């Protein structure tokens, strides 16, 4: 371990990122610019999240990484291994055991507690970007709370599709002040953002950090007559039978047969371990339990 400083980044960089994190926590939903570093992985693979995790980790932490809810995808495994190697911290796939959870595109089904930190990987932090391409103008709009345009997008959705068609990266209003992009989590996860844990958002390529302190008010934008609807597929999980979790649709053959399974692998396994078995599920073997 003498080849690397603890958790890869040098202390000056960590200090810079922590300052950005503190500022972000002080102004919930505000995008703080930071000097994003080159990381040993390509942009789009979670460089923002990794830098935030690296600046946040202490040797006593237990680290968990999920990618679309799963602990076992290439991306999740390589980031987990990266910190096992450079920080020598303990890792876990159990949501309740982890103190820092880095995530791409999901919030775990198990409710997070005080003392936990959720780190999001963010591709495009600016919720107004696709409506207003000029950064100078979007900044001014945030500064002046000039958010009419945000609802124009939702209006266009309803005019064209009859309902708000945005299903992920659904914009939220933070503490009645800043409109924020929650990263591309499904809108099903939006209500969970009012949580006990700290939420940190890192966008590496775009060089922005933002944050939500515990119990921050987070409201999904909507219309009175088209209220926000955190819907999901109307099925139970085929493996664990859960009716309350966000599901992935899996095509199982060339005839288009499909099954719906929990996207949160840890949640699904824990349920099966305690005897909840869906139509296609089996109890996990003891060795994994």
């Amino acid at each position: 371990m003498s080849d690397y400083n603890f958790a890869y980044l040098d202390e000056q960089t960590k200090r810079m990122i922590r300052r950005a994190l503190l500022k972000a926590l002080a102004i919930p939903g505000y995008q703080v610019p930071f000097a994003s570093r080159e990381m040993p992985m390509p942009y789009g693979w979670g460089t923002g999240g990794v830098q935030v995790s690296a600046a946040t980790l202490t040797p006593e932490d237990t680290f968990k990484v999920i990618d679309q809810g799963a602990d076992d995808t290439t991306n999740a495994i390589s980031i987990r291994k990266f910190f096992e190697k450079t920080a020598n911290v303990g890792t876990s796939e159990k949501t309740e055991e982890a103190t820092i959870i880095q995530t791409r595109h999901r919030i775990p089904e198990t409710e997070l507690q005080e003392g936990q930190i959720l780190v999001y990987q963010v591709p495009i932090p600016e919720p107004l970007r696709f409506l207003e391409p000029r950064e100078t103008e979007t900044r001014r709009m945030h500064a002046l709370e000039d958010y009419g345009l945000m609802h124009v997008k939702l209006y266009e959705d309803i005019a064209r599709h009859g309902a708000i068609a945005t299903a992920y990266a659904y914009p939220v209003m933070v503490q009645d002040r800043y409109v924020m992009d929650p990263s591309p989590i499904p809108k099903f996860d939006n209500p969970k953002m009012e949580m006990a844990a700290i939420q940190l958002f890192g966008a590496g390529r775009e060089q922005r950090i933002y944050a939500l302190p515990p119990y921050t008010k987070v409201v999904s934008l909507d219309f009175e007559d088209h209220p926000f609807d955190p819907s999901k597929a109307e099925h139970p999980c085929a493996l664990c039978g859960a009716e309350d979790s966000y599901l992935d649709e899996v095509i199982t053959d060339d005839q288009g047969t499909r099954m719906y399974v929990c996207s949160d692998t840890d949640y699904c396994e824990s349920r099966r371990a305690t005897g909840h078995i869906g139509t296609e599920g089996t109890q996990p073997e003891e060795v994994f339990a």
Partner: protein
Amino acid sequence: MTPLLSVKNIEKRYGARIGCTGVNFDLFPGEVMGIVGESGSGKSTLLNCLAGHLAPDQGSVTYDRTSTGPVDTVTMAEAERRMLSRTEWAFVHQNPRDGLRMGVSAGGNVGERLMAVGARHYGNIRETSTDWLGRVEIADSRIDDRPSAFSGGMQQRLQIARNLVTGPRLVFMDEPTGGLDVSVQARLLDLLRGLVREMGLSAIIVTHDLAVVRLLADRLMVMKDGNVIEQGLTDQVLDDPQAAYTQLLVSSVLQV
């Protein structure tokens, strides 16, 4: 009677060059004032200073705000000025592309100002948008079409609907009929006259077209090289011009 807009000694320079200088006037509620002059006379510079798009180097622009009474819009905070410009003010650009969101449907364009001031009921927003499209003579079947599919005259009418939907008190217009066919212009002029009368609007209209100001404006200001040459009642300035430049301007108009 308190003027709606009181302009005192406005000056704007571009380096050593004068944009406009020494402009003074009071605009009262319900008045429509025209500003005429040739290209480069400073009329657009002045309009942008009045509407808060440009910061003047000198002078004050005092607006009689509904909630608070007279305020200097030159020194007020940007946030307040923006709030004014989406509630009590409106700005109609010469080129509708500058005043419309070309990628957003006609209904969305009209609804934006409503949503910006807090409207959150889709059905009501749509109803108001439909109503306003009707008032500017755009069929409600076009509500979900983008302005890029509209003719120039329709785009300009859409821009007017988008601006007037929140019931502003003061409208700034920069060559509102420029670039339109004469026949389309006539229809637009009639529409504007009707709206000004029905809504009790005050307006400042910049144009180089003397026929337009004769039909729309109660009062006229003539500018040249950044200075106000003459001002007064529109028909008086046009029929009995006092300044040499105005006499030249009026006598230069081709008779149809």
